[in-house]
């Protein structure tokens, strides 16, 4: 048997205890143990951004974070962005602006955009493009994703 280590972390505001193998990633336990499959698995080398989550306020590629490193951390995944069954203004803007096609990259895009706006409520187009450069979208919705982030920032100002 592979030895496991107990970790405790907060995921979307809920405390969770998980026994994890030393080599398992945060992505592994989110998807396989906690059944939070909104966070997606693609490249596993930290290049595509599909597995982006928030760890203690900053974005990480959850495929590159060992689960044991997340012991004690506060994690937010895409499932944590909507409150009380109501999608967030950012999620709504993604829909309204046509930023979503196949949708597979969208959880990661949303998490990156959410953290960007939290730290920089009025980003420029260049800042948005740079902040989301680590989130690949093969449907090529980059223009619409940028529009959605801009629109969310403008809406928040009103």
């Amino acid at each position: 048997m592979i030895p496991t280590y107990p970790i405790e972390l907060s995921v979307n505001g809920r405390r969770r205890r998980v026994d994890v193998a030393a080599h398992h990633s945060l992505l592994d336990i989110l998807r396989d143990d906690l059944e939070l499959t909104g966070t997606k698995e693609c490249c596993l080398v930290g290049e595509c951004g599909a597995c982006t989550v928030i760890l203690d306020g900053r974005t990480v590629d959850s495929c590159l974070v060992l689960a044991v490193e997340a012991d004690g951390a506060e994690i937010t995944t895409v499932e944590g962005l909507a409150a009380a069954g109501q999608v967030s203004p950012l999620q709504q803007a993604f829909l309204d602006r046509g930023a979503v096609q196949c949708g597979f990259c969208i959880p990661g895009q949303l998490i990156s955009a959410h953290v960007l706006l939290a730290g920089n409520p009025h980003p420029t187009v260049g800042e948005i493009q740079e902040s989301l450069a680590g989130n690949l979208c093969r449907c090529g919705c980059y223009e619409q994703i940028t529009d959605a982030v801009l629109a969310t920032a403008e809406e928040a100002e009103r």
Partner: protein
Amino acid sequence: MSRARIGGSPNRVGGIGRVTGSQQYVADIRLPDVLEAKLVTIDCARARIISIDTTAALALPGVRLIMTAADLPRPVPRFGPKFHDRPVLAVGETNYHGEPVAIVAAETKDTAEEAARLVRVEYEELPAVFTLAAALDPAAPLVKDPALRPNDPLAGTNVIREHHFGWGDVTIASADVVVENTYTFPMVTHFAIEPHAFMAAPDGAGIAIWSTIQHPYVLQKTIASLLGMPLAKVRVYCPDLGGGFGGKQQPKLEPLIAFTALRAGRPVRLVLTLEETFQAVRRAAVEIRVRTGCLSDGTLAFQDIESNFLIGAYVEDADRVVEKSNYMACGPYRVPASRIVARTVLSHTTPSCSMRGIGTPQVTWAVESNLNECAYVLGLDPVEFRLHNLARMGEAFIPGDTPADGRWDQVVHKAAEMIGWGSPLLPGRGRGLALGIKSGPTTGLSYSTVRLLADGSVIIFVGTSDMGQGARTVFAQIAADELGAPLDWVTVVMGDTAIVPYDQQTSASRSTVLMGNAVLAACREIQAKVRGMAARLHGLDEASIVVEHGVVRLPGRDVPIIEVLRPGLGPLGGELVGNGEARKDADPSHPLSGAPVFFEFNCTAIEATVDEETGDVVIVRHVTVSDVGKALNPLQVTMQDEGAAIMGLGHTLMEQYIFDEGGRIRNLGAIDYRIPTSMDLPLEMLSAIVENADGPGPYGAKGMSEGAVLCVAPAVAAAVRQATGVAIRDLPLTPERVWRALRDRPIP
């Protein structure tokens, strides 16, 4: 007009699940008792398998099954859409790097991976071919055993088919100017962000398969045939895909997973890594020689085209890619004489398959680039030159085939205007323009069932796959419009062959037209029933009643459908059911087995500048204009066009497989194989459409999801040529390649 109706852009049906993470893709589905699978491969492209020792792997606790070809029926079953040449597992020999020789099924993913590493495969590396030059060498080792190609005159070569198209006689056509060049296009890969995923489970006397597949009914047929089961006992689930782009059309590893699940007696699941998807799907690499003849006034005299497509070790749909794209190689022009020779060439590499544009981006890269060269040599404006030769609406530009089905001149004029064609350029800038045309589907069969429920809500059943293109939304809009339901009262059921009626496939940008027509026909059948109801209820002659766009038009007044439906159904409630069919049968006399239902036509115009120090190409403005007939959902049309344009920039500027001498892909995975990110966009992306409601689909729509990828490369290369004076004929236009070309530029 309501935003939900035809011509409006309501939010994507299924969008909420995509932004909240609740949308379940295949890899997100958890079956109880499922075994995790891992493929066993060897570090070599072509090898003779001497032995496979599974002892150590089987000894690992948690390993339930290891299958090799020896555990499959004899002879090992093979499959493929036309040539049944792909074995379920490698038999005796591997033919490309990454071809599975065994599969492990274990209780956990960790165990499966470890066991796969413990399987000892003894093998002997064999001579192999990875390039066109090597594959076409008369002394080349043969990829396909000639014994498998009886009565095939090409059996002693690596050419699987040689296609000949054309008309007139190029050998006697006279021209004032002849321009001849050779162009190359590398192997690239689909890189859907969702890696392929497969599951299979014994299901009573049958089997259930979950797959990231565009064509659930093709998969059903394949599995039924391989397992000897009736179609009804093969249930295929295909949840919405995380991108397909052609790479998820044909069955690949599903047969293997099906045999594994039946043998294990338990569900089995295989999710590929991104690296494994690189070894599963790719676009064909191409070398094309184009010889174009023109009169001095710019009138095209002939096209003489010879293209070699480097496909992989198994044919899959790659030969269709070759024939379909090359048949249209002369483009949308009036060409008096043409000769097209196109070869489908096997190699010991990943099987190539259809990818957005089905070979047309490769052919268009060469032929449109050569036309730009002709304009340059003749001293003609490339736009005027094209317009001079462009087929007019109704003109049979390919003799005997579907005539030009759009006002393509309007597309060219619009793109030229949007790029500012003819206006002064800043120093160091260049502009380029190119046209792309692709044959739409040549056969088709789509059925749809639509149910109008007692409260006026609607359920649509379709076998189309929604892989991001937005088919679900468009079908919902059609039914909402025709039956008068609010869009959020329409449910679209897809992705389960036990529930939805047959659909041939989701490809060739067909679904809006063919399945759209089937949905429309089903709605019309319901409308006819509503008309009968209204006549009965009001004691009127049916002929005096019209039902359209959700409204019952009675003599003198209009009422919503629900006001007829409710009393018409009566106290028991119930529903009205409509069935629709869209069919286009094959035409055996046609070179493609059928004339296209429509053409996709696009004009792309680029303004670019080049950093002379680094060779970096900066796209200042990218204009893409498509003839879509009628945009049923203009926002989704923009998303598809701009997305296709960006995909085109990928193969134009950065994407390519790089092989080592042993046929292994060196840049395997996301670190070394780059696709466009948000930092690689044109400084300005402008898309527009031409709509004349002249398509065969609902309300005059044409298919449109591939047009904008077709001619990006020749437009960019023409802009680079104007900016720098250098013509580059090999893709991609990486900084290194451009820098080298600039360095070697002759001093004027």
